[in-house]
């Protein structure tokens, strides 16, 4: 089986979710070719070999420095053809998922997004997808010769399995129509751990009583190298930016550890966190519904518990 993996980068560095896509492809067995588009750090590209890529293609076209959905889909479809790839694997990011759709339509591939574990190939090709916003799974047969698979965070564990490989330049001639969408500017949190990529997430709700109290939550997050998140009311009230809103209609996270502070646990919030491995709930209301979905709970005042927890974590390091 020949597998092509689309890897995304941010500020030149390969995203962790894309490393998981390489690890996933490696786990499938067969030959693994990674492909990166636009400016990407050369050392980072070569290092993809360590995680399971046998070949790395780089399209160093500056027009691709920005993630334009149509152009990216054209490049990846052509690369699937040129590399005789049976499967395209990518991380289900805000860019990866829309791109996967167009690649599948172009190549006639069977398409599955939100895939949570390696395919079962004992009889055919069956993937397990997360559905109903994490409340259930579906096992789906992908029957076409070509397949496009978008994986959910934590579908594969990143491990060093090889050594760096040299990068092969690759180019595709693109049409003007591929650039019909023009990206004029972007704003992005820098220097922080990004919420969809984080292994640990510390989230605050209305119980934090106001944006001015976030520093104690940020101290905890910083100590854990965690990303910060929030509930829908907090983002609706403008206490925190929308990209931190975790929930049914916000970001769905799947970290190793999710710590919820002053969040009651409305179903719409739980839908965004139910793929977390371990959930800690800190709330002063012992009847908060979130405790039912938690692994560990503390009934207590956030303003007393948080500084103590931060101190205890620092002491345990």
């Amino acid at each position, binding site marked *: 089986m020949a597998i092509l993996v689309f890897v995304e980068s*941010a500020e030149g560095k390969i995203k962790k979710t894309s490393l998981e896509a390489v690890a996933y492809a490696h786990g499938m067995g067969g030959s693994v070719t990674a492909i990166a588009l636009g400016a990407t750090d050369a050392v980072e590209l070569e290092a993809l070999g360590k995680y399971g890529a046998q070949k790395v293609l780089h399209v160093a076209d500056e027009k691709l420095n*920005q993630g334009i*959905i149509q152009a990216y*889909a054209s490049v990846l479809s052509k690369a699937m053809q040129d590399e005789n790839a049976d499967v395209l694997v990518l991380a289900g*990011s*805000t*860019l990866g998922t829309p*791109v*996967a*759709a*167009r690649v599948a*339509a172009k190549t006639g591939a*069977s*398409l599955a997004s*939100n895939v949570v574990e390696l395919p079962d190939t004992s009889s055919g090709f069956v993937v397990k*997808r997360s*559905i*109903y*916003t*994490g*409340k*259930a799974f*579906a*096992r*789906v*047969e*992908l*029957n076409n010769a070509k397949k496009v698979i978008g994986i959910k965070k934590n579908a594969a564990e990143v491990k060093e399995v090889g050594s760096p490989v040299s990068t092969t330049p690759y180019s595709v001639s693109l049409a003007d129509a591929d650039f*019909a*969408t023009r*990206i*004029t*500017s*972007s*704003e*992005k949190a820098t220097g922080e751990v*990004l*919420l*969809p990529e984080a292994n*640990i997430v510390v989230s605050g709700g209305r119980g934090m009583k106001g944006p001015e109290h976030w520093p104690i939550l940020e101290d905890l997050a910083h100590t*854990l190298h965690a990303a910060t998140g929030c509930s829908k009311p907090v983002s609706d009230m403008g206490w925190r930016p*929308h990209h931190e809103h975790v929930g*049914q*209609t916000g970001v769905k996270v799947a970290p190793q*550890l999710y710590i919820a502070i002053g969040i009651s646990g409305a179903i*719409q919030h739980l*839908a965004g966190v*139910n793929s977390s491995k*371990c959930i800690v709930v800190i709330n002063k209301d012992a009847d908060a519904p979130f*405790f039912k979905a*938690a*692994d560990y*709970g*503390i*009934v207590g*005042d956030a303003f*007393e*518990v948080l500084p103590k927890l931060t101190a205890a*974590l620092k*002491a345990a390091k």
Partner: protein
Amino acid sequence: MKILVCITHVPDTTSKINFTDNNTKFDPNGVQFIIGPYDDYALARAIEIKESSGATVTVLNVGLAETEPTIRKALAIGADDAVRVNADPTDSLFVATQIADHAKANNYDLILMGRESIDYNSGVVHGLVGEMLGMPSISPVMKLELEGTTAKLAREIEGGKEYLEVSLPFVAGCQEPIAEWKIPNMRGIMSARTKPLAVVEPKAVDSGVKLQKFELPPAKGAVKMIAADNVAELVTLLKNEAKVI
């Protein structure tokens, strides 16, 4: 200006999910169905555009007769007419093919839908439709402003947003805060009863995707409570028991 809004008919976000027939069918027992929350944002933005600069808004749903109350609700919110493609929406490619088939014959300037449905969560129908129609597709869209035949959009990216420009026509997968959800008023509800709702038969699709079965996640164990004055114990448990730090 002609706008198509594609809506899904999905279980309310608070629904408990169960399956029947040896885990091959969704169990609708006791479940309330709603317009997909992301689709509701798309619809609200379409109605805002209609109110501010004039447009006709058509809603389309791929579903069996049971989805008609959901479609009528979209008409009550302000859509002008509706199309129901009479089929069970089995997979993304099937649904996208029905949307593209309808859109090809109707020359829409704008095709809006939610970023994803909240049942199958695929998040790919906008991209499939865009590719099938040879139009740009953009998702997840948080802001959409029209200036003549150009649209200015904001798209969510990990940890931020990017701003884009694109000419009509195009396909967008929408999410908050593109518009505020609209609640139908009594006049809307009354007029929705007589608005046109066409039922068309689906186009056959060989999508290469087949559901084997559904599964529920394993039941969650009981929560372990820790005293507020003993946070050190929590740190120990996270380290040695859960092994997550």
